[in-house]
């Protein structure tokens, strides 16, 4: 987003900018964290870490990629840190956040965990590498080169994974229809 261009020149972020960045990219980051971990609680924790890291280390954003891609990269690295180690896992965090709120009804919690479209049942069952490439293409519309850098693979590998991912989805949809 052009309006975030100025962030590549700052060494600190103010509250207004943080709020703006969260408004702009909060859902994108949470969803990507969820695509990577398939766990809502982990996605909550990872998303918080991502914006906190971005806030404290905005000076490392040099504008070589878009702000969105930069945040997605932090999300990916953070998600893998969570998978690698229990170090950052704040198991009580989610409980501490919700304890201050009115409890949600069982029905609303159930509805909130259902996918908005059955296509996500298919996509979330894809192997990790295919799922990641596909959602980066569908949801985040990254170019092959942006994806290659984010995933640290060759552009040809990105294309191959995308092709396989799409074919698997096609196949699964056919099986469902039949």
């Amino acid at each position, binding site marked *: 987003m052009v309006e975030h261009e100025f962030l590549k020149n700052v060494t600190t972020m103010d*509250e207004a900018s*943080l709020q703006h960045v*969260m408004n702009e990219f*909060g*859902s994108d980051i*949470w*969803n990507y964290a*969820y695509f990577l971990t398939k766990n*809502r609680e982990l996605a*909550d924790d990872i*998303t*918080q870490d991502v*914006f*906190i890291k971005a*806030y*404290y280390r905005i000076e*490392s954003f040099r*504008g*070589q*990629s878009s702000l969105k891609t930069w945040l997605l*990269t*932090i999300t990916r*690295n953070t998600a*893998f*840190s969570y*998978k*690698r*180690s*229990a*170090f*950052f896992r704040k198991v009580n*965090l989610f409980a501490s*956040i919700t304890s201050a709120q009115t409890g949600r009804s069982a029905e609303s919690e159930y509805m*909130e965990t259902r*996918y*908005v*479209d059955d*296509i*996500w049942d298919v*996509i979330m069952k894809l192997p990790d590498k295919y799922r990641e490439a596909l*959602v980066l*293409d*569908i949801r985040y*519309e*990254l*170019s092959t*080169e*942006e994806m290659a*850098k984010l995933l*640290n*693979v*060759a*552009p*040809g590998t990105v*294309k191959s994974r995308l*092709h396989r991912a799409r*074919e698997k*989805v*096609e196949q699964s*949809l056919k099986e469902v229809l039949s």
Partner: protein
Amino acid sequence: MNRDKPSWYERARKGPFASDPFDERLRQAIKQKTAGKRDSGRRTSVAATWLVGAATVLLAVLIVARLQDAMPFKGPGGSQPIVSPGIGDIGNHVAVLRAEGTSEAGKLQVVAPNGEKQETLGAASCVGQETDFEFQGSYQVVYAKEGENGTVIAELPDLTFIQPSADTVRMTKLSFADADVFLLVPQYADCHGLSFYAYAVDKKNGEAFPLTFRMADGTESETSYYPPGQQPAIRDGQLVLPSSEGPGGETAEGPQDRIFDLNLAEKALVQTPAAKAGDAGGDSGTQALTRSFVFSGQTYTISYPNQDAEYYIYAAETDKGIVWAPAPPLGGVDQDLSIHPTEPYTLYLSEKKGGALTAENAVKLYTLPLKDGKSDVFLSGLYQAGDDIVYSTYSRQPGMNQPEREQLWALGLDAPTQARHLLDFHSSGGFLFEMGIEPQEGDVVTISKAPDGNDGYITDANLFRIKEGTKEKLTSYQEDEKGIRYEKNGKMYTAVSVQ
């Protein structure tokens, strides 16, 4: 060409959940964790920062000095908290010295000025035994030069230590030529990797500061990790973190150690590319980078000038030798979608004897055009097909998210005067493209699928007989894990997938 995407693509743009998962509670949590930095005014005033920090430090140092004589903690069994004998009380909190490291110039101490939550783990897992101790709190890293008061050099909010005893954790000390680097590893065990912080004590001026891990992919982190059961080490003046399997540790060549140069001026540990492991430090930006290819058991390397160029290199083995293309000079590297060649790609042919592939030891075969109208031409694949080379290109203008055009070409190795255009295709944005090559027959099979607007695809399959220079529609073929099975002259062949 029909650019409509399949309907399932559009369906997947929504969600996956109906409600916005990034809700107010998450925003508030983020604001709370960043509010401390804003409220202290540290961002706007260095002097104010030190005034606040100095007051805290003085208090912390006083507490630490008293804790030096404290009785060691002894934990009772079960889940009862372990409480220090009351030395260093601050109001209702008990300050704690949790970790320590000593250099010739001074001492690093990790202190919880407001106390810790302490309990036993209670159940065995890969993070520890059931009798291990778990400490949680907000910590400060305090550094005191010999004979001087301490200074807070880092804050570690919401940190958890898991240790087999309640003793003060000894920080791992690694001695570099110009500094001692101390590693703080709060948890001694884990299922996958042990995360740690690093702090440097400059041997020349005795100053201490936290180190940032600056990764080869451009990201930065205040921590890194290494596998349980292994140790970081110094080799040839560089920090070596043992490899780990899985995301972040795996590469196309398999698990590789991560190598870092200590850069005191930048207060960072800077990761070097794997090909440079063993270099004795220095400015990594001025040394040549190389990418390796293995053909028939022999390794070939092609050098490239900087990180941006790595994935613009191609090579393929043919009966006549190795055909390869170095990364051309690139412009627009400050923005991913602006990267473009400023000079055209050139194909070279080198002997099949391994080693470095250079223009000096190669025959220049063919130079691709730099432009396709207003668009820049990129090489995207290089393959053997009989006595020819088949290569794919895409053309794109700076700022374009997807290619404007993708094309397939053939070039004879005996007389490479002019490439022959085979096909235009589209492989992104809902379009599917599969290609296989039977290298000895010199056959190329392509399958293009374009969305038909009714959740289906229009398929166009072709067999290019490169040797004969012919093209025919394929009405019958089978795709399997290896590639595309097709029939020619009554015989079945497999065009191995290359895309």
